[in-house]
């Protein structure tokens, strides 16, 4: 059973035919061009020669891939060797396997084959493994082998090897029939609910269903901790006034302004001359004033529109927390509802944008693990607007797992000049080429806000450790404070360039799992001692 196996030789044929299907259309077009050009024989000739060449090359390629691709499974492992020139070997442990999909296309059905896709939680490239064509029995065997014996009830499906070629089965009419079963490898994401049936682990919980608001309304009074309809539930709802402020400061209007401005500049030539003359007479005689007025008008319009869009979009935004999950509902026209299993939450970020910070307001975003391609909606905004002073209470109610740090360890004073220099240098690189333009020297004025931004970045950067929670705070333009648990950090990196080494500073980076790929958060120019402390905290030694 443990011998090194190859895929079914028909894999070469299946892959070649599949590849050919992609090539044939452009080839057909080229040949058709010849036919239209009046040269029928030449068209046919091109097509045949081209098709033959493509088929031959891909057949050779796939034959080599087939020959060099071997796999072997033994208790708990799947080993693969692959690669024609660049050789690869991979071992996948059963516990790490998230799902095993058996997919059968039309070609597979004709030959009684199946393709097997083994997926792990990896967000990194090439995280999955694919066998293009094996016999149906072999596919079943691999699937069973990668699934724990205790979840074997999932294999009790009627899909025996015998009906693999049968057509009367209504499902068989579907050319891409697929089977998905969760393997037990989800423990790294899930609470230790070992006994949970495999069916609940498929991870497709968040559903953007257009359900009635009835399910969410019972507890939707403003900030009512403990006013729980179901056991252990608390709910928060964004009041209308707050929503207005959120929309007003969302910054969406700037984008809209750019769009409207662009649209307007396109329309400009079509507006009749007389209209402008009329406008000029009415308002003022200088062209400059008109332009200023126009800009303000567009700005105001886009601000209003984006505000309305925001308010409609996030109307009735309600966040509910129960024991093991959170439920988010929002939307006026299209009521959306999302259920988020808590084990999938990897990190939360408190974001204060430049527009909102002066008002002491922030919003919460979340990094969420898993979620297949069918889940188009990744929840990123966990809560659209919060007052900074209510944050601690809010977290205590909704997410007691995360604590707002009492204080952050800031950066040492010697980091300040590096922050200032960096901000100024970037600006200089932008400003210096402007010197070839008239009034280019005005660009140097930009150095002032750049220096202020650098100073703000320096002051806002910080780290904090609290039990099993690491907090990183940093600013690009908006200020972000990321809270993550030790067991959600996938890897920790400390790096230093020669200048940083010289001053005993370093950059610290923590990566977490997120959808669709991992995310890394960094704080620059941290005191080496502080970085060591975090390293020690993360290390198991």
């Amino acid at each position: 059973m443990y011998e090194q196996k190859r895929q079914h030789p028909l894999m070469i044929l299946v892959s070649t035919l599949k590849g050919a299907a992609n090539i044939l259309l452009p080839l057909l077009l080229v040949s058709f061009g010849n036919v239209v050009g009046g040269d029928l024989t030449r068209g046919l000739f091109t097509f045949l020669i081209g098709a033959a060449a493509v088929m031959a090359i891909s057949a050779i390629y796939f034959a080599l891939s087939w020959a060099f691709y071997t796999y072997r499974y033994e208790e708990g492992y799947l080993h693969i060797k692959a690669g024609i020139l660049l050789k690869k070997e991979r071992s996948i442990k059963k516990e790490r396997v998230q799902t095993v999909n058996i997919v059968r296309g039309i070609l597979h059905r004709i030959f009684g084959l199946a393709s097997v896709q083994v997926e792990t939680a990896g967000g990194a490239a090439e995280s999955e493994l694919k066998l293009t064509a094996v016999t149906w029995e072999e596919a079943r065997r691999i699937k069973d082998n990668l699934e724990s014996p205790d979840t074997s009830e999932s294999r009790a499906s009627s899909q025996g090897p015998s009906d693999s070629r049968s057509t009367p089965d209504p499902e068989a009419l579907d050319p891409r029939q697929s089977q998905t079963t969760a393997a037990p490898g989800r423990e790294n994401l899930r609470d230790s609910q070992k006994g949970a049936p495999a069916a609940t682990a498929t991870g497709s919980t968040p559903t953007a269903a257009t359900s009635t608001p009835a399910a969410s309304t019972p507890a939707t009074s403003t900030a009512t901790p403990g006013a729980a309809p179901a056991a252990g539930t608390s709910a928060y709802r964004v009041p209308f006034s707050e929503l207005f402020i959120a929309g007003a400061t969302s910054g969406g209007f700037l984008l809209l302004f750019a769009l409207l401005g662009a649209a307007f500049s396109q329309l400009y030539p079509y507006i009749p001359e007389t209209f402008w003359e009329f406008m000029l007479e009415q308002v003022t005689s200088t062209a400059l004033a008109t332009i200023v007025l126009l800009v303000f008008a567009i700005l105001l319009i886009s601000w209003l529109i984006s505000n309305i869009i925001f308010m409609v979009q996030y109307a009735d935004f309600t966040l509910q927390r129960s024991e093991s999950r959170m439920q988010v509902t929002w939307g006026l026209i299209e009521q959306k509802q999302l259920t988020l299993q808590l084990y999938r939450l990897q990190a939360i970020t408190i974001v204060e944008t430049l527009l909102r910070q002066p008002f002491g307001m922030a919003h919460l975003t979340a990094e969420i693990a898993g979620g297949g391609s069918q889940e188009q909606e990744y929840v990123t905004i966990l809560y659209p607007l919060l007052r900074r002073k209510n944050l601690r209470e809010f977290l205590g109610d909704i997410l007691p797992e995360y604590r707002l740090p009492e204080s952050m360890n800031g950066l040492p004073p010697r980091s300040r000049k590096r922050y200032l220099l960096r901000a100024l240098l970037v600006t200089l690189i932008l400003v210096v080429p402007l010197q070839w333009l008239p009034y280019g020297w005005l660009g140097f004025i930009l150095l002032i806000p750049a220096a202020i931004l650098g100073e703000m970045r320096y002051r806002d950067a910080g780290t904090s450790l609290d039990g099993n929670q690491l907090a990183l705070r940093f600013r690009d333009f908006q200020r972000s404070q990321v809270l993550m648990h030790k067991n959600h950090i996938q890897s920790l990196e400390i790096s230093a360039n020669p200048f940083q080494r010289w001053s005993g500073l370093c950059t610290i980076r923590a990566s977490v799992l997120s959808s669709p790929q991992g995310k890394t958060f960094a704080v620059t120019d941290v005191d080496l001692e502080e970085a060591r402390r975090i390293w020690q905290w993360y290390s198991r030694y």
Partner: protein
Amino acid sequence: MEAEPRERIDPRALKAWFFSGLLLGLALLLIPVAYLILGQMVWDWPPLWGWLALAAVVVYTFLDAVVIPRYRMRIWRYEIREEEIDIQRGLIIIRRTLIPMVRVQHVDTEHGPVMRYFGLATLRISTAATDHRIPALSREKAAELRGEISALARVSDEDV
């Protein structure tokens, strides 16, 4: 954190990197050579640019094949402990990475033709969010580590 990771990569890496750097250099050399020859024979291009490009390729190849591998070699360290993997790498910016075993999703080894000739392989370690590599280990060592890490990379109860 105080001490550097203990293990170094295989000294044969120097040869392999020299060889692949040299191959790349030779390939790059074709561009200025073609310029010089064609420029002289077919068109009337000034040869100066060709010589400059040639010099640039030579300098680059020397750095890439001889100088940089030495530095890289000196900095590359790794250590595989029972519960974590500790990697140090870099040239100018030195990076130190810590990967807990429980976070490792899978481990690969891979080698191209040059690496194979020198009996080397690269170990690639993937977590759910990141990808890390230890280049140029001996093939046996790489296979051994792959087995070791996949055995150690168990799912622990501390996971939530």
